[in-house]
């Protein structure tokens, strides 16, 4: 596709994060690129024409994940394929979401950092990051700051990332209980979400975490649903009515629109169904695992 590329643009390839953020400070017009699965599509569709690119693939610091005890720190350059293959035991929600991204080729190229930087409401990683209370690590020449995931998304494809800043990692708490991720699409694979839902259950703290994708201008949580009363003292009292109530509250938290992928009504309906199923599944799993 060289013929489709701009006639002329600068290409930077730093070898370290410090160099990368220095280059970003010097060249605020430079667009970071890792897998290119968002950016290069936009370039090919001539939706954007970067004057400069900052190639992140030379930054080994971004390309691995580390076990930090209660959390996992995932470098922003880790591709979805590795999250699915390597982190399913500790981050089952995120791993399940990563499995639904695009095709095998896209999952090998596309990175979690790119998903965050693009900040599309349809990005598959967002709901599980919201449900688990992740934190985004952002570097600049000013230093490193950590943004709670709930404060990261500001609007459609807008995030808390400022000019000159680079996402270096996302820190995700390890699963304290069962997690679920459900994604609705009009095809059985390789599809942008019509809507999606992530749920994390922590039986110790008796807390639920939620994340809603593709049903609002930004990825959303459903605080009212998280506050649903669960029968912890008598797990057998969990019933369909409770699951459905949870689903209704999730649907109520969504702010969907009609578009070519689906209608707002359908998105609300599907979220209610998915949320009810997710709650049933995590509840069942929690009590199968810990029969009390």
């Amino acid at each position, binding site marked *: 596709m060289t*013929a489709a590329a701009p*006639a002329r643009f600068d290409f930077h390839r730093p070898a370290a994060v410090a160099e990368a953020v220095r280059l970003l400070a010097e060249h605020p017009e430079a667009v970071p690129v890792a897998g290119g699965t968002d950016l290069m599509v936009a370039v090919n*569709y001539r939706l954007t024409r970067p004057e400069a690119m900052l190639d992140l693939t030379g930054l080994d610091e971004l390309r691995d994940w580390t076990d930090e005890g209660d959390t996992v720190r995932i470098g922003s350059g880790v591709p979805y394929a590795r999250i699915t293959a390597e982190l399913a035991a500790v981050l089952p929600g995120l791993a399940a979401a990563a499995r639904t991204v695009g095709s095998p080729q896209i999952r090998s190229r596309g990175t979690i950092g790119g998903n965050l930087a693009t900040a599309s409401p349809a990005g598959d990683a967002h709901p599980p990051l919201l449900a688990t209370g992740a934190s985004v690590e952002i570097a600049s020449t000013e230093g490193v700051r950590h943004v709670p995931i709930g404060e990261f998304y500001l609007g459609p494809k807008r995030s808390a990332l400022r000019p000159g800043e680079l996402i270096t990692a996302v820190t995700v708490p390890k699963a304290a209980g069962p997690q679920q991720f459900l994604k609705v*699409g*009009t095809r059985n694979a390789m599809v942008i979400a019509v809507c999606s839902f992530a749920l994390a259950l922590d039986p110790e703290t008796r807390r639920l975490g939620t994340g809603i994708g593709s049903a609002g201008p930004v990825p959303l949580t459903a605080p009212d649903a998280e506050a649903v009363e669960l029968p912890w003292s008598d797990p057998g009292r969990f019933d369909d009515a409770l699951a459905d109530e949870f689903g209704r509250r999730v649907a109520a938290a969504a702010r969907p629109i009609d578009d070519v992928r*689906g209608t707002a009504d*359908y998105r609300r309906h599907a979220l209610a169904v*998915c949320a009810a199923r997710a709650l049933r*599944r995590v509840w069942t799993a929690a009590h199968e695992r810990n029969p009390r």
Partner: protein
Amino acid sequence: MPEPATPTPPPWAAGGVGHTPAPAARPDAAHEHAAPPAADTGPRSSATGAGPRNAAAHSGPRSGADAPHRPQPPGEPAAAPRTGAELPQEPRPPIGPPSPPASAAPTLDGEAAYRTRTSAAVPANAVTARPDGTVGQSPIRPDAEAKVNGTFDYASDLAFDGMLWGHTLRSPHPRALIRSIDTGPALALPGVAAVLTAADVPGKLHYGLIEADQPVLAPGEVNYQGEPVAIVAAETLDLARRAAERIAVDYEPLEPQCDPSEAVEAGAYFRYQPVRVGDPDTAEAAVVVTREYEVGMQDQAPLGPESGVAVPTGGGLVLHVATQWLHSDLEQIAPCLGLEPERIHLEMAGIGGAFGAREDLSVQIHMAMLALRTGRPVKMMYDRAESFLGHVHRHPARMRYEHGADADGHLVYVKAHIVLDGGAYASTTEAVVGNAASLAVGPYRVEHASIDAWGARTNNPPCGAMRGFGAVQTCFAYESQMDALADALDLDPLEIRRRNAIARGDQLITGQVIDAYEPDPAAPADPDRARPFSPLADLLDRFTDLPVPPVPADRDIVELPGGTGNTTHGEGVRRGVGYGVGLKNICYSEGFDDYSTARVRLELGGPEHDGEPVAYIHTAAAEVGQGHWNLQTQIARTELGVRHVVLLPNDTKIGSAGSSSASRQSYMTGGAVKAACEAVRDLWQDRDLADGPIEATRVFRHRATKPMDPVTGQGDSHVQLALCVHRATVDVDVELGLVKVVDLTCVQDVGKILNPVALEGQIHGGTAQGLGLAVMEEIVTDGGRVKNASFTDYLIPTILDMPPMRLRIVENADPEAPYGLRGAGEPPTLSSTPAIVAAIRDATGLPLTRVPVRPEHLTVRRPS
């Protein structure tokens, strides 16, 4: 696929361009003669002798100089070798430089001078097939290796020295007047070689497959979003695109007409075709089912984008194009360029899928104009978004059907009101309407019918040819109606179809009698021998030993609706089963002069061919991925008894092959190659190949058809009919409206299996395209604007959506057709859609009158 609707064939139907043998003048166009030996260049350049060296290299009856090179049809004993005394005593001249035509061997028809010029060097891009595989076998395709290892040259891979890139500026408006165009800012960019508008079109301003109504470049108004307005040539593609953005077009937007029914009311339509038989208004029915159906706009979605290169020559052009029909392209291109057709040579470029999308012109005239203006080769290549705007789609349809049946489920009458949206320009809408009307009730016997079919003119994207061609839309409606009748009468869906199945001697609603069926002698005999043979009942009966697959116990989520989306672990999943039957016409209908041309030359090969005879085949038939090249080699091996076959490039140096569409190339170009081989074989009986090559050209025609009567629709309009039956088994998550098709079982009558692997590929692919229409594929428009011109949002089935298939292939031969074959590429596309929707109805209990069925149709918003 275009079948002209007018009683008189359109001018382009009459027999091709100037250098095509005019069929009318030479009814059988048999130009056979002993061609001079080929020039000593090209791949065969080492073939310098056919004498003793060959004898040394070979033994056995068919090779070696001692044995004359004679035809040996399979199964026949070899001709007795001539004795040595009969052999020429003088050393033979080597097979070397060609003799002048005047001194060629005696001619049979006095046309040697005309023909012999064609026997020349084998071009470097000729395709040499592996030396095995006859009709009925599945040799490895000659294009397989290159396509698998990535070395096949698709049209988008072409490159020439000094080449410019072309780009098209398209209208953002579905309808607007063009007040002015200022190309100055674009021309001012360094590296821009030309910017052309309608004012620069050298010849006729319009082109079209049937009716020349589509502007080369918009001359003062645009009628659909994406209509070409100006073209640019520049040093790079990116520069051409940026230059196009700088062309200042002053549009005056107008209110677009986007409602096809309103357009028809207003008299804006390309064709109206009624069919009238019997008296449906007075016929008495015990049960009546009336429904309205809708079919969305499907796209062919070929993976290879439109692309080509125009290379200027002294006073003319060579166009490298990926098209379904070279000669039709040429006839449309030449008048617009103001050039004699003889000055334009078309060479087929590698085709990355077609499905009807490459019948209409795309880049052809534009790149030719830019090449003529700049004097340099010009390449054009659409990106995916432009491709969606730059080719026609399948006609969306709105259909109101009324079926009346007696208490036993026998059809009494059918009434149908069918509106197809042709969009802004004619393309093949006329012929699509003819198919929709003539096949409107499917393969069922009914005495009373009243059908009205229109092809509307709107400001929506132009629609034209796509696999199934007008038969797909009505098939969804009539099959849904058959199921509705079965429901009303509490009949099994197979049984109601069996009771109404057409049989030999029955008539379609057009009056055409069902003939040309010779039941497979290997098939079990009908217990009711008094009943005429029904090709449909025969297929339906085959399902009795094809049980519906059981529900597996432990399933991975990828086997469930929603797939890796993890939406169900079994929650809300219900199974459904449904049937669909499709009836498709094969070849061009309605009086069209449909023919194909093939030239076959047989000569002794060099050492690389072990000195054996080599058949060179030259046609203009497009290999669109269906495997037609391979079939040609199989036919040559079968008819000539040779092993080695070389396919010469498809181009306009040979007469027209017609289009690779309407499931017709096996029949038509297969028929032409077979006829040419037979002619060569006959000549070979009396001649030794060592004396020189033998060559024959044949034009093949199918039996004649008639136009449909414009008032009654009556007439034997179709050549051949083909049937396919699908049974779909689906799992539906009824709470989320997600569908997983878990099994598709297909019974199809192909007359004769020519290549099992290619045939299965056609059935799988056609079925998948029908699946796409059933549950996901639709170009969504809003006010004439396309909303999903990308593979992100125009979804086609993945391997996880398309189940493994079970096939039962039936061979009820057509005695009129070569080898008894029946066209096979399109019928599965018809029947898989209604089968899948019937299965979803079975699972959900919903009426489902629109395709594609979307998740919201099964849950929150039910359009029916």
